[in-house]
């Protein structure tokens, strides 16, 4: 039973407290948040943030994420370099975990959001349910790529044997944290309801 949407009754749903209020109001009467029928300029904002994240993704992968200083000789390691090193050492399962968390998840999230923006922009009405699930997935895995940054923080604090073995944070860690945060905001500024608005236009 496809029922009515809130928008069809000119009601705006507050994104923070879920209160339904007249769409002509600009503030939620219950919690005071900004009220919109749909998030404003959702596509443009999401795309702008995605481009920012993609640019940040370059230094995040090229620069060293951490520097290991062993007996005075320092070795830089990039994200991919770390994965390759683990494979060489024979720890395939750990290499897989790190590869998934720090390469596949952020890439997948970027690609998924780009695809969603493109599909909405191009007006493709196909399988809105699947695209909604895709969006929710991208939103859910958002903060999990921060694992890498935390690993650097922990190793820097823990491995601190002066003169023997010291681990230092690299510039890529900041860039990578930036990628994760910007994509989190990008996912938040995307409004999944516009996927369904197009579907309704087709149905009518």
């Amino acid at each position: 039973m496809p029922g009515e949407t809130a928008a069809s009754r000119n009601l705006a749903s507050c994104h923070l407290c879920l209160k339904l209020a007249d769409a002509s109001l600009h503030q939620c009467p219950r919690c005071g948040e900004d009220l919109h029928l749909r998030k404003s300029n959702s596509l443009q904002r999401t795309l702008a943030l995605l481009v920012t994240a993609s640019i940040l993704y370059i230094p995040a992968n090229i620069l060293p994420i951490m520097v290991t200083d062993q007996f005075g000789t320092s070795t830089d390691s990039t994200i991919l370099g770390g994965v390759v090193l683990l494979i060489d050492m024979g720890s395939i399962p750990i290499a897989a975990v790190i590869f998934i968390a720090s390469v596949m998840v952020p890439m997948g999230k970027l690609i998924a959001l780009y695809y969603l923006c493109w599909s909405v922009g191009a007006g493709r009405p196909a399988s809105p349910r699947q695209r909604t699930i895709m969006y929710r997935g991208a939103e859910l895995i958002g903060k999990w790529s921060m694992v890498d940054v935390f690993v650097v923080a922990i190793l820097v604090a823990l491995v601190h044997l002066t003169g023997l073995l010291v681990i230092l944070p690299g510039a890529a860690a900041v860039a990578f944290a930036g990628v994760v945060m910007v994509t989190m905001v990008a996912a938040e500024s995307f409004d999944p309801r516009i996927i369904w608005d197009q579907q309704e236009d087709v149905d009518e």
Partner: protein
Amino acid sequence: MPSENDANLVACPSCDLLYDVGDMHHGEKASCSRCGCFLTRVRDDGFAKMQSYSIAGLICLVIGCSFPFLSFESSGIESIMTLPQTAQQLYDQGRPDLSFLVAAFIIFIPGAVLFLLLVLSTCMLRQKFYQWMIPVTRLVFHMQNWAMVEVFFIGVLVSLVKIGHMATVVMGISFWGYGAFSLLFISAVGCLDRLQYWNELDQLARLQHAR
């Protein structure tokens, strides 16, 4: 037509379809039939649970911050790490930006969320309404996305695996304290149901007004 009973209406946040969720009982959960998005779950003991999880969680956070977290030993030299040091060391190594982010994501934001949940659930249980509860609740909802307690804990496990072969790593009291904190944090936030919470707050405000 559910037009007379607009108070019980809710729009699916991800596809905007309207639902009447008035007649729900303890333990029931509502999801959108069109897109599958979670709508709400009714729990009569939500606030009592939220309060107890927050108290326990805050105690565990204090434990997590005050004792050795991990210690690392190689060739007879030992280094001990505490939780605040993860941020401190980054700061000392010339990365104040990263240090600030890590401290916020793993200590300050989750700690603040848990503290505010404790305050709010206590007010709710005592049936007291104050005007400041509205902005404070908004703050909690804005902050909760940025608490990365569970992500950090996975990070700890990954680091253990990464350096486990290089030297002896021993887990300290804080390791277990923080582990318990992350479980309690997830449970406390899990008790916070957007729709039920705001409806309850509405009701309290009305009660207070009538008095």
